[in-house]
């Protein structure tokens, strides 16, 4: 194995990391807002709100992300005159924004189900207790429902963020030069697929490892009730020995 080549490859591919993270986090941030909206629509028990949200989730979870990206990037080109008229063409012309839009719409569908699960897992007696104390509406949501729901949903949402980091690789197909894009370019220039693959895979593993750790730290921070209580009076114990 050629280590000099692998080091160069590593340095080249690291150049794609900012774009990979940029795509992933922009999409996750916009997607989370949209997902929350979808989850609330699904839980509203109003048919006119519930039904479109359900259809949305079905469509975006049932079709490949690459089809969604192509539909937005190439497909909307068919309506170029109309989009130009509306002043939206500058947005849809850019592969970056098309990728972000597709990733956002996609993650929103998956995350909305995770959020819904979290919201539904909030024990009913907690809500009743809060109501008995006189909380209602937004205060109840902010103080009781939301914190418990976040705690429940976080592990699953963590995997969704990892999936998003992996999904950014598809942006390389519409010319975005993130890690996979650079890797594909290098492979087609050097024909050393195995080495480039190992380096690129390593970069993704490191990224995902760091993200997993961050999520675990947030989980730990959010669930003080599950932590072991700190040892009390260690000095006394020492005296016994």
């Amino acid at each position: 194995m050629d280590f000099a080549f692998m080091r160069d490859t590593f340095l080249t591919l690291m150049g794609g990391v900012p774009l990979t993270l940029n795509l992933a986090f922009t999409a996750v941030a916009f997607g989370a807002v949209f997902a929350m909206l979808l989850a609330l629509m699904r839980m509203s028990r109003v048919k006119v709100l519930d039904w479109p949200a359900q259809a949305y989730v079905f469509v975006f979870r049932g079709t490949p992300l690459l089809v969604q990206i192509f539909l937005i990037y190439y497909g909307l080109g068919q309506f170029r005159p109309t989009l130009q008229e509306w002043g939206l063409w500058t947005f849809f012309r850019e592969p970056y924004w098309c990728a972000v839009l597709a990733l956002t719409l996609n993650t929103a569908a998956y995350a909305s189900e995770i959020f819904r699960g979290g919201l539904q897992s909030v024990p009913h007696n907690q809500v009743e207790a809060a109501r008995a104390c006189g909380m209602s509406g937004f205060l109840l949501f902010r103080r009781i429902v939301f914190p418990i729901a976040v705690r429940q949903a976080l592990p699953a949402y963590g995997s969704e963020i990892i999936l998003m980091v992996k999904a950014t690789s598809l942006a390389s197909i519409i010319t975005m030069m993130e890690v996979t894009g650079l890797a594909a370019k290098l492979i087609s220039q050097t024909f050393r697929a195995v080495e480039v693959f190992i380096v690129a895979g390593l970069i993704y593993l490191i990224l995902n490892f760091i993200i997993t750790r961050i999520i675990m730290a947030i989980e730990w921070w959010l669930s003080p009730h599950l932590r072991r209580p700190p040892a009390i009076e260690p000095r006394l114990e020492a005296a016994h020995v």
Partner: protein
Amino acid sequence: MQQLSYFELVGFGPNGWGWALLTATGMTIAVATCGFLAGSIVGTLVAWGKIGGNVVIRSLADGYTTVLRGIPDLLVIYLFYFGGSAALGAIGSLFGAEGFIGVPAFATGAMAIGIVSGAYQAEVFRGAFQVVSRGELEAARSVGMHRWLMFRRIIAPQVLRYAIPGLGNTWQLVLKESALISVTGLVELLRQSHIAAGSTRRPFDFYITAAVLYLLITWVSTYLFQRAEAHSMRGMRRAS
């Protein structure tokens, strides 16, 4: 030239792309199925390694599932496509052939899908194996069944029963992943839509058709997996 209507475009008439799209849909299903079955074999072996292997085998199996679930599928497909042709090229040059030898896109695709989905299926099988009651395995051993017979008669049928919901999820993943095989030039549904979109300059119409066909496959397979689950659970007492 007169603009064709949408239905003329994707229909089965002289200017329609209907047959091409239908064949490509069949190709999508074929490559996804082959990949899924390959993944079942890989997954079974890896799950076996995780459950019954020694320290070395177990850590190898753990490493495999961690790595394959942590890197983008597209990278794996590139590895198989370019790596496979590089390997074939090296073998070819031994026999005097020169230049780029392409590997069959179908085999590459099915193999890449198999390797990736194997990692997911291993976890599904391992989870399902935990549900099989220890007593039953002991009983099987005590009546003198050896490994293979026990696997065939006791373990496999029960693991499959509990694994069906998880396998259903993996199948959906595999189906969507098969769209990525289009980068290797295999004419499956997405690739065919891309070709049609290029030659008619009607990308939206074709990609939306592709999306609808994918939804249709998803929908039908969800139904089939539900049926299979109901069938496998017949005669089981349900806690309710």
